[in-house]
């Protein structure tokens, strides 16, 4: 039984204790639930993972064998989309932070970037199908899929570039101008090199995002089952997230392909984990470097 509070201060403090415990409890349970989800999948999927799983083709209606074509497909898509999105996104971020003046234009560009970031991934898929697959006649191909995924990753890269350039102290720019360097030269030789590790974080987070997206590749590249490796950019390919979707919902035999599904999910989670750790590491590296200067 709670002791009867003597005065208002005690009530106040008791309430505070109760509320703090509730907030703490909720926070820990959220984290616990989220970690349990990861643990649940990892525990069941880790047993499937071995070299054969990575290096062989799916067999017997995708109930046996490995996920090699899906891994290769995802690699191609990630590489393709980043080759397209990273330079453009970086230049766009440079424009927004270094060239655009405060005002209507900059606000408009930022609004549009935010809007682009909020567009649902399935809409990107539809757009990619309409423009790249049909209008430009690429067909369902790695090229069309990479372009679609590039659009999706673009706002992420633009924003990270912008943020990392903003973090570069103005004294660097002024010092460079004082030495007679032009604006472009300053950006190329001073601003971007300082910000580069952080800009790379955007690239890495983009890789994480792109490798897990399913909806944009549904109609632009993904093959349901293609037991060979793609041989040109106009070929279809399999991809990890789509493969997981297929074998967990519409495969030939859902129950017997469950282990493969868990294994694929583990690979996807591992990619995200790795990518996040790398990004965090680079971010820390960057902040230390800036402090040093």
């Amino acid at each position, binding site marked *: 039984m709670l002791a009867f509070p003597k005065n208002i201060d005690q009530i106040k403090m008791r309430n505070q204790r109760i509320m703090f415990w509730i907030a703490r409890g909720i926070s820990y349970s959220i984290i616990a639930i989220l970690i349990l989800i990861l643990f*649940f999948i990892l525990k069941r999927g880790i047993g499937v993972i071995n070299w054969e799983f990575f290096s062989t083709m799916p067999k017997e209606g995708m109930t046996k064998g490995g996920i090699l074509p899906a891994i290769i497909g995802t690699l191609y898509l990630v590489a393709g989309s980043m080759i397209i999105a990273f330079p453009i996104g970086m230049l766009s971020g440079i*424009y927004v932070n270094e060239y655009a003046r405060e005002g209507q234009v900059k606000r408009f560009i930022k609004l*549009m970037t935010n809007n682009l970031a909020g567009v*649902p991934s399935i809409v990107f898929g539809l757009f990619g199908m309409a423009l790249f697959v049909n209008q430009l006649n690429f067909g369902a191909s790695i090229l069309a899929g990479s372009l679609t995924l590039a659009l999706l990753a673009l706002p992420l890269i633009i924003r990270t570039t912008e943020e990392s350039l903003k973090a570069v102290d103005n004294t660097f720019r002024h010092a460079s101008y004082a030495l007679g360097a032009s604006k*472009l030269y300053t950006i190329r030789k001073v601003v971007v090199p300082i910000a580069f590790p952080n800009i790379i974080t955007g690239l890495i987070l983009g890789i994480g995002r792109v490798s897990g997206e399913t909806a944009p590749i549904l109609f632009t590249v993904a093959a349901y089952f293609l037991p060979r490796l793609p041989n040109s950019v106009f070929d279809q390919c399999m991809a990890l997230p789509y493969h997981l979707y297929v074998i967990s919902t519409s495969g030939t035999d859902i129950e017997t392909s469950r282990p493969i599904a868990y294994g694929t999910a583990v690979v996807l989670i591992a990619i995200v984990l790795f990518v996040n750790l790398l990004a965090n590491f680079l971010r820390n590296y960057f902040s230390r470097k800036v402090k040093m200067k």
Partner: protein
Amino acid sequence: MKRYLEYLIEWIIKGCGFISAFIVLMIVLFLFKEGISFLNSSPLEKNYGLFVSVNNPVRKLTDLQIKNIFDKKITNWSQLGWRNDSIRTIDINNIESIFTKEQLGTNYEYLSICINHYIDSIPGTLAFFSERLLSISSGTKEIEVDKISLWSFLSGEEWFPTAKPASIMGTLPLLLGTLIVSFFAILFALPLGLAASIYLAEIADERIRKILKPIIELLSGIPSVVYGFFGLVVIVPFLQRVFHLAVGETALAGSILLAIMALPTIITVSEDAIRTCPRAMKEASLALGASHWQTIWKVILPYASSGITAASILGIGRAIGETMAVLMVTGNAATIPHGLLQPVRTIPATIAAELGEAPYGGLHFKSLFALACMLFLITMLTNIIAERISAKRKLS
């Protein structure tokens, strides 16, 4: 020479600066080009028509009536405002049970004569044929079919885009399905996320925060298809067992899953909002004798409320657009939802599930683009509202 090169590079940078605006413009253009073009067209297959006797006073039929007639739910003309006479439907599927091959001719060259004769002799006939095969005689007329309008598209209560002979495109069940799933997702996620963000921003020590924050950020990066898979193997069977359902794939499963997926975003954004509260404000409250909790509840939360609202609106926008996870766990029944324990189908799930089998350029294909337009507009709207709310905060 070097100067020109610099000019060129600066122009390229400038061009790239507008890339996102350009892409948004292209998306609008392409989606709306396909999505609007199907409005005002007939729900019947292209070049097909419905034919009746000239004595038949019925001039117009709606898509739903046509479906019910061919599904034998409407069997008498009196239900459509004519005399008491049963409806006989005749189309390419049952024509050969009425006429012999010789009567029709090898290439259906006598089809017109046969049909016109049949309509003349049995006035209650409703014939569905290609206008190319059928030339109308004086005893036959073509029935008008209601065109697909924006209103019928938005308010229609049934979604059967592949129905024959007339596709039925009412998006109300899809829209309601989307809203119900997203609304309950935010209802579950917001209080939990808010509590966690208060804890992280105000209560937790720096040491604990440094551990928890990266975990939460990590979880927002897990692909939605992995969450969907988890929902499929854990949440769906769990709900099925707890509520004794025939199928566990329900709106509730979708809401729970979306809530889990939205939590990291909501926590991060509202924590940022809470952190913007000026130190002076907090200290003033504490100096007046308020406890830390009272300060949080009466000072910090009201101050951060617009940021938290923006966070939840953004969360709703995300939830509405989420495709794969929802597609995997909600059961995808395109009926108007009457409760959380029923299968529902959301707009993005519909697009993902049906686009693969919709013939390119057809009515069904275009209607899916129209759905994408709706989705695009909804998320654009939520983005702009969220932006406005947080802009207001900065001004004051």
